[in-house]
């Protein structure tokens, strides 16, 4: 019985991993579905990184618009990322986290611009930072901020 607590710890870990995997897959699938739908809806609102407007583009007004989002990674993906950090190499499990974060931030920025009646967003930039570092410096969640200059025709 001496080592029962160690095995209890391992069992807790496996249960957390199972819950994380299931819930994480579901949340990710739903988010991507929503992202694809809104990208179709807002596809006509141009986003570019160029700083200067073409001289022929009508522009009655320009406004700063931004979209930000905080996305968290599930327990399973965080665990696998921690294992990867022992050996080095690409951390595949965080790729979808960052992809979702950036696309969601862009969509929110576009939504803000659409509400202002803008036709395009210029000088688009991203800022990404990790917040809520999990226990012992693991990444818990990521904040992505997208900002740019909305041009109202």
């Amino acid at each position, binding site marked *: *019985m*001496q*080592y*029962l607590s*160690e*095995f209890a*710890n*391992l069992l*807790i*870990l496996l249960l*957390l*991993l199972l819950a994380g*995997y299931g819930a994480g897959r579901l949340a990710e699938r739903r988010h991507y579905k929503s992202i694809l739908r809104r*990208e179709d809806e807002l*596809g*006509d*609102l*141009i*986003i*570019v990184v*160029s700083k200067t407007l*073409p001289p022929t583009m009508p522009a009655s007004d320009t406004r700063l618009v931004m979209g930000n989002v905080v996305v968290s990674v599930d*327990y*399973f*993906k*965080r*665990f*696998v990322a*921690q*294992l*990867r950090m*022992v*050996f080095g190499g*690409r951390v*595949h*499990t965080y*790729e*979808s986290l*960052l*992809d979702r974060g950036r696309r969601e931030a862009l969509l929110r920025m576009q939504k803000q611009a659409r509400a202002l009646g803008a036709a*395009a967003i210029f000088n688009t930039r991203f800022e990404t930072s990790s917040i809520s570092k*999990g*226990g*012992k*410096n*693991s990444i818990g969640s990521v904040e992505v901020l997208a900002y740019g200059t909305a041009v109202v025709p």
Partner: protein
Amino acid sequence: MEFKNVKLPEGINVSAHSPLADFFILSAGILAGFAALAAGLLFFGAALARHAPVSWENALVAALFENQESAVDSRTAETTGELQTLADRLSAHIDLPEGLVVTVHYWDDAQINAFATLGGHIFIARGLLERMPNENALAMVMSHEIAHVAHRDPAAALGGVLLLQLLLAVTLDSAPTSLERLITGPNALLLSGFSRETERQADKIGLHAVAALYGHVAEAGRIFEVFLEQPEPPKLLSTHPLSRDRIDGIAALARTEGWALDGPRTPLAPALADPPAAAR
């Protein structure tokens, strides 16, 4: 120049890589690596400790046992004396390292337990004595503990576990909690497996001493029959082999060595048959 949003192709910034495959491959790699390193350290530490001078072992515990004798009453002293006499008779049939003297202590506790520790010190609990019907049954327990002393098992356990704990402390200090959880389960498996093997060896050596003293091994399995009265943990989680396996092991070794499983029982000395208790 005309600007337009183009739908970007999927699957470029997010690779189609199965996280489950990563999980299994990386977990297996870490567990295998840790197991190899931990097993190496455990056995190396134990081997090193077994070869350390006996004087070091004695010095480690000398201060703990210095003033004990003056604190006991006459009944306890008599019980301790009888236990020591039995231990001396059995020690004559066990190869003890030079400088290591077996010293037995009577432990006034209701547990059915006995253990050996550093410096040749052995503790026999009242609870165990009360369950021994005769000297033959007690002799197996005593010789098992003397075998631990002879094999330097307490020192080996200390040395091996120390090195292993050092490894854990170094690797897990900056590791995430989840990695700790992944490693400590298999670590426990390793330690309990190591412990079970030393217990098997002690049973073997102890049984040889019992057979040499009495000419037979009757009642050698009695203590394990007592343990069978209580539920036992699963084998892999236990620091000791299962009691049924130990009883079978005694019968198998007796057959191999040609020892009689039955024979005359030697009664316990009165001080052992009725051990003193602080408050009854």
